[in-house]
């Protein structure tokens, strides 16, 4: 049971993070061909890094605890960098 919960939790975190990055960092999941999942993975890692850098977190490119905590904080609905110069 703990193993299953853990897997579900990881999936949930990843889905949540994808949506967060789509909303606020211009991450576009749908446009990336499935055959290039490796590229997609890197692209998401880049976007996580972009988010971590912007919000002053440790830049790891991973969905670590502090990054997920930040993603779950209440926030403004405007993108952080996508629409701004």
């Amino acid at each position, binding site marked *: 049971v703990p193993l299953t919960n853990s897997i579900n939790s990881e999936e949930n975190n990843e889905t949540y993070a994808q949506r967060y990055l789509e909303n606020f960092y211009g991450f576009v999941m749908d446009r990336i061909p499935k055959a290039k999942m490796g590229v997609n993975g890197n692209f998401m890692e880049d976007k996580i890094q972009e988010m971590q850098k912007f919000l002053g977190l440790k830049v790891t490119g991973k969905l670590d605890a502090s990054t997920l905590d930040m993603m779950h904080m*209440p926030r*403004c609905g405007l993108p952080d960098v996508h629409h701004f110069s």
Partner: protein
Amino acid sequence: RMQGRPVWKKHLITYRINNYTPDMQPEDVDYAIQKAFQVWSNVTPLKFRKVNSGEADIMILFASRAHGDFSPFDGRGGIIAHAFGPGPGIGGDTHFDEAEIWTKTYKGTNLFLVAVHELGHSLGLGHSSDPKAIMFPTYSYVNPNTFHLSADDIQGIQSLYGGPGKHQLPSNTDGTESDNCDSNLSFDAVTTVGDKIFFFKDRFLWWRHPESPKNSVTLISSLWPTLPSGIQAAYEIGARNQVFLFKDDKYWLISNMRPQPHYPKNIHSLGFPDSVKKIDAAVFNPLLYKTYFFVDNQFWRYDEKTQFMDPGYPKLITKYFPGIRPTIDAVYYYNRHYYFFQGPDIFEYDVISHRITKRPKQNIMSGC
């Protein structure tokens, strides 16, 4: 700044609160929004006017889930508000997620703090990566009484609109200004603050050095955005770098020019009876280390060491301050003298000999 650098092309911007959250009293919503606008008007030439009908430049509303702008809210938590950059139609509009619990305190989501952020967007600011900036994208509570814009916020908004012009000062405001050369000028409160004397009148604040004819003027809200106008009494304990400001049954502590957390407090916590609703004037005597509070024709004495009212008070002003009329507008202590303000009259009163020593000319401000 937002992409394309959208800004309002005019300096008088209207806003309308389209609907109210049931979480707060409407007057508290009005106050939070007005104060949030004031934060930005203090550092720019912008002025904001509330309208109650028709289309305003900035329309403010509370909404749940999908609300007609293709950016649905997501229930409690997550996204709590959003706003649109300057422009016609939906441009400049600010939306708050009704699913949040909106408050004027630290509980739930503080409307004032979120409004300052969203109105920053309404004026053309994007998100800041500085965690100290109000334009940082995530919400965290700070005491509204000590809140101030970060350098990043100010640099951002002033890069779009410039700094506050001289017209923000009394000479060109909306007609409620005081003429500092009016021979009948009276003050709401006067106190020393460090090496200066501060004179409070309506929403204005003058300051000058005691020995210098030069004075400066500003809005109280420019210096302390979260404090009200119409300060009624003020006194300083110089040795502690503390200034206390009073309005109605509340008082605030300013220390090193910054409003302190956990204020305002109720004046009754100082030991006043319930019948006292406001303080007319207050002055600290550093020789006795006691503070005199003047209320109508009476005064109380408060021991700043024990933090208790002295017994045997109130007493009649006219009996213990010979020559001083029953009600006092303002008073400050300087160089072993009290300076009492009663309407247009000023009395210099020696604290040792207990008598009036001088009646300075009313023209205490320069240029009068």
